[in-house]
Structures are given as structure tokens and as C-alpha cells.
């Protein structure tokens, strides 16, 4: 594993499997009465969120707490950032306070990478601009593998505003690495022009794609994009690309419906479709905690240096 998790593009398939396998053990921990293990006692994890986020921040917070790490939530409103402090000065402050890991969400693509220049701890990207959201992709892979038993050869469609979606980018890269057949579906204005270079297919007719899928992954419609004229109206979007009650019947029986949340019920997904057993949206949330525990454990559970301190070997937890 690298010291940081900045993008799926930096992670190879072997490490993805390791993260998913380790997450299995953490999901077992999450099923216990006492959902906490002492693995990261004494470590400090800082949640540094420059963009609003409820589920990702809470998920990281719970993950760190279940590993017994100390968690500091640093949100930008009401903090020194609101007073004009730069990312660099905030980073140096957190560094001086001894943060072992910084989980960052930022509206600028590349902010997590920039942060790594100023801190010694691990940096985990919790979403940066329109770049990547790697932990979301990993929890989605985990959910697919858990439900369908494999990733290789799975036929997955990612439907909606791929152009502005860091979730779609990370998930596409991850699926391609794991050998899944991925199709991006949406209006031509919302599919990035370079998408074929990612190793994915592109389609514009949802109903033609649905019967061949193992997973239908819906993206949230960002309503402000309509004002920017990426599509004529929310209603038209919904008519062409929404997963409606009638369309969901086109999916094979075992196929899953997934969504990264928060959902717009009635727009990209009909309300009663979201409540079908095949819609595993809440499982994605539960699995997200296990995936983030796995990542924090793998990134912080080693010393990060090749040399072992003297005495560790002879006096380990062995025997």
C-alpha cells in the first residue's frame, strides 16, 4: 500500500483486493455487540472537510472511532478557515498537532495531493472537486463483490452526470482495474469526451442497456447543472434516464441497483425502486464503515518504514 490514498489510479488490483479482504474482518467487528477494537489506539485522525458532507464524514468518524483512534472534526465554517487561513497553514497546524492521518474533502481537484507536501501523516481523499472519491469506489466494489461473489466480468452501468462526478470517475477506474465491463450511460452533454480512453463503453439509451446488467449504478442529478444547460429539464432527464418502476423490470432478476447517496427520489430513481430488495443503498453505507476501517488500518497499522525498530521482532505478540 502507498502511504496515502489519493486516487484509484494510484492503487493496483492486488491492493484493492487486500483492502476488500481486510474490510471483511471489519464488517465482522461491526456485527459484534462491542463494535470497537484497539488496533489504532493512540493515533489521531483529522477530518478536514472544506465541503459539506454528512455521510462520508460520519462514516470516517465512526471508522476511526471503532479502531480506537482519536478523531478531530475540522469543518471550515466557524474555524480559522472562515477567517481566511490557507490550506497550507491549516495543514502545517494539523502537522504540528501530530495528526497521523488527514481525511480531506475539498472543492478543488488535487487538494489532497497538494496537502501531502506539507504533512508527514497519511492523506485520505474523501472527494476532491470533479477528480476522485476513491473510498466510495472501494465500498461500491465491496458491495458488488459481497452480493454477486465476484468483480471480474460483472456488467455495470453508471448512469447520469458522469462529467461532474468524482464518484463515477473513481468507480470506473476501479471497475476497469478489476476486470468488470463498464458502460457509462447519460445524455451526451454529461459524458466526458475522453471516456472511451478510460476503458469503458458509452451509451445513451438506458432501456437498451438495462437487460444486460449485473449492476445499475445511478448517480445523483445535480440540479444546478440544469441551470447551466447541460440538460433541458429535470423532468426530461427523469423521463429518459430515471430508473422508474417500469424500467427496473428490464433488469435481470439478480441485478443490483446502487446509488452513492444522497438520493433524489423521483428524479434519478423512483421512490419505490429505491425501496426494492435489490436496491442495496443502505448496505453501501454500512459497508462504507468497514472499508474506511480497512483503509485506516492498512495505512496507519504499519510504521511506514522498511526498517523495523530494534526489539520489535524478538518481543512481538508472538506465542
Amino acid at each position, binding site marked *: *500500500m502507498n502511504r496515502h490514498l489519493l486516487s484509484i489510479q494510484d492503487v493496483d488490483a492486488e491492493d484493492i483486493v487486500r483492502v476488500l*479482504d*481486510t474490510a*471483511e*474482518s471489519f464488517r*465482522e*467487528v461491526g456485527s*459484534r*455487540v*462491542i463494535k*470497537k*477494537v*484497539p*488496533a*489504532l489506539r493512540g*493515533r489521531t485522525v483529522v477530518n478536514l472537510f472544506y465541503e459539506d458532507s454528512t455521510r462520508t464524514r460520519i462514516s470516517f468518524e465512526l471508522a476511526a472511532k471503532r*479502531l480506537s483512534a482519536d478523531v478531530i472534526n475540522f469543518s471550515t465554517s466557524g474555524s480559522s478557515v472562515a477567517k481566511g487561513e490557507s490550506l497550507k497553514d491549516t495543514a502545517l497546524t494539523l502537522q504540528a498537532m501530530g495528526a497521523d492521518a488527514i481525511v480531506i474533502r475539498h472543492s478543488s481537484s488535487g487538494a489532497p495531493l497538494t496537502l501531502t507536501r506539507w504533512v508527514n501523516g497519511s492523506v485520505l481523499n474523501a472527494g476532491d472537486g470533479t477528480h476522485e472519491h476513491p473510498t466510495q469506489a472501494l465500498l461500491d466494489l465491496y458491495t458488488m463483490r459481497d452480493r454477486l461473489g465476484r468483480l471480474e466480468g460483472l456488467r455495470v452501468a453508471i448512469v447520469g452526470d458522469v462529467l461532474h462526478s468524482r464518484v463515477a470517475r473513481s468507480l470506473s477506474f476501479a471497475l476497469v482495474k478489476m476486470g468488470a465491463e463498464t458502460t457509462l450511460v447519460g445524455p451526451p452533454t454529461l459524458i466526458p469526451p475522453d471516456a472511451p480512453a478510460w476503458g469503458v463503453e458509452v451509451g445513451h439509451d438506458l432501456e437498451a442497456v438495462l437487460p444486460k446488467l449485473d449492476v445499475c449504478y445511478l448517480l445523483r442529478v445535480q440540479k444546478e447543472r440544469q441551470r447551466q444547460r447541460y440538460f433541458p429539464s429535470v423532468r426530461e432527464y427523469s423521463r429518459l434516464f430515471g430508473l422508474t418502476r417500469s424500467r427496473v423490470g428490464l433488469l435481470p432478476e439478480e441485478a443490483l441497483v446502487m446509488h452513492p447517496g444522497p438520493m433524489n427520489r423521483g428524479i434519478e430513481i423512483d421512490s419505490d425502486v429505491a425501496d426494492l430488495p435489490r436496491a442495496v443503498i443502505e448496505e453501501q453505507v454500512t459497508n462504507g464503515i468497514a472499508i474506511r476501517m480497512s483503509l485506516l*488500518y*492498512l*495505512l*496507519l*497499522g*504499519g*510504521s*511506514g*518504514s*522498511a*526498517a*523495523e*525498530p530494534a526489539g*520489535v*521482532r*524478538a*518481543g*512481538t*505478540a*508472538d*506465542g
Partner: protein
Amino acid sequence: MADDDDALPRAAGRPSLMASSGPGPSRLMDATEIGRALTRVAHEILERNKGAERVVFVGIAARGDDLARRLAGEIERIEGTRVPVGALDITFYRDDIGMRAEAPEVHETRIDFDINGRTIVLVDDVLFTGRTIRSAMDALIDFGRPSAIQLAVLVDRGHRQLPIRADFVGKNLPTRVDEDVRVAIREVDGEDAVLLDEALGVGARGGET
């Protein structure tokens, strides 16, 4: 057990201990001796606990869980009682996380029965420093409140660093600290054996990175 995770990775495709070149380890116990030791330990467990009605086995992964299943098989053969068997991974309870270069590999934990009020026989392959057992006891307490925890090991090689002793021992094997005792188990390694690697330096242990 954590010690042998390093030496004998469970994953297929990695070089096996048996294929190692060089002077090679010496064999301290073979399959027959291990079988006899387990049979005797099973009898001792039954004797101590006056049967096996309240007993559950929890084996420490990897290999301790396989040994626990064998002991349960022996007890079923002797008394006809089926003893629940669980597997426990102690990785998240280790006292050296963050001191090694990489986070230790995690195995499966599976304890799908209630341990409250039961007598747990904790099973491991080699008892050495006692630190694995300390971790295992901490982990078990997170699952409930057993009425007692007893410890069964195939090999006790001495050199305890904590005040811990085994209740049931397959074989006491006095060793030097710098020697390496490894247990091979049919289910994981393809054969049953207890092997001694002499004076492997601190940095020269197989599988350690």
C-alpha cells in the same frame, strides 16, 4: 498464531516451508505424535471440565482454529458431545501495531455462538512469549463474559514475557529464544509436523518483510 503467520503464510502460491532449501529444519514431532498428543489433551479437557457440556473451543487463526476443530473431533469421538468451535483473529488486539513496516495481515474471526457463561478452551499451536494469548483474552472479553478461559497448546516452548501459562500442553519443548518453532498443519500446510529452525537471526525469518 501470529508467530507462525510470518513463517508460514496461509495463502496459496507462496513458497512453502517444506520446500525451503538450506540445512532445513529438524523435526520435533511427526503426525502420529501430534495425533497422540491431541487425543491426550482432549481427555485432559474432559477430565478437568467433567465432560464437555459447558465447553466451547476458540482457536487462534491461523492453525489454532484447525487444532481446535481436531480437538472437537476427538471429544465427539470419545464422549459423543459436539463442542462448538470458533476462530479468533487477534490482529486488531496486537501490542505491536504500527511497529512493523506493514500492517499485519488479518484473518477471519468467526464466533457464531454465545460465550456468556461458557468455559472457553482457547487453542493455539505454539505458546511462546504469551503476547498472543494476552491479545486473545482481550478480544474474547469483547464477545461476552465467559465463566472461565482455559488454554490448550500443541507446543510450549518457554520464554514467557507475560504471566501466562497453559492448562493443557501437547508437548513441552525447551528452546533458545533465537530458535524458531513452527507447526505445520495438514489443513494449511499439507502435513502435520512440529519443526525447529535453529538460530534464525532476528532479521532472517521467513515471510518477514
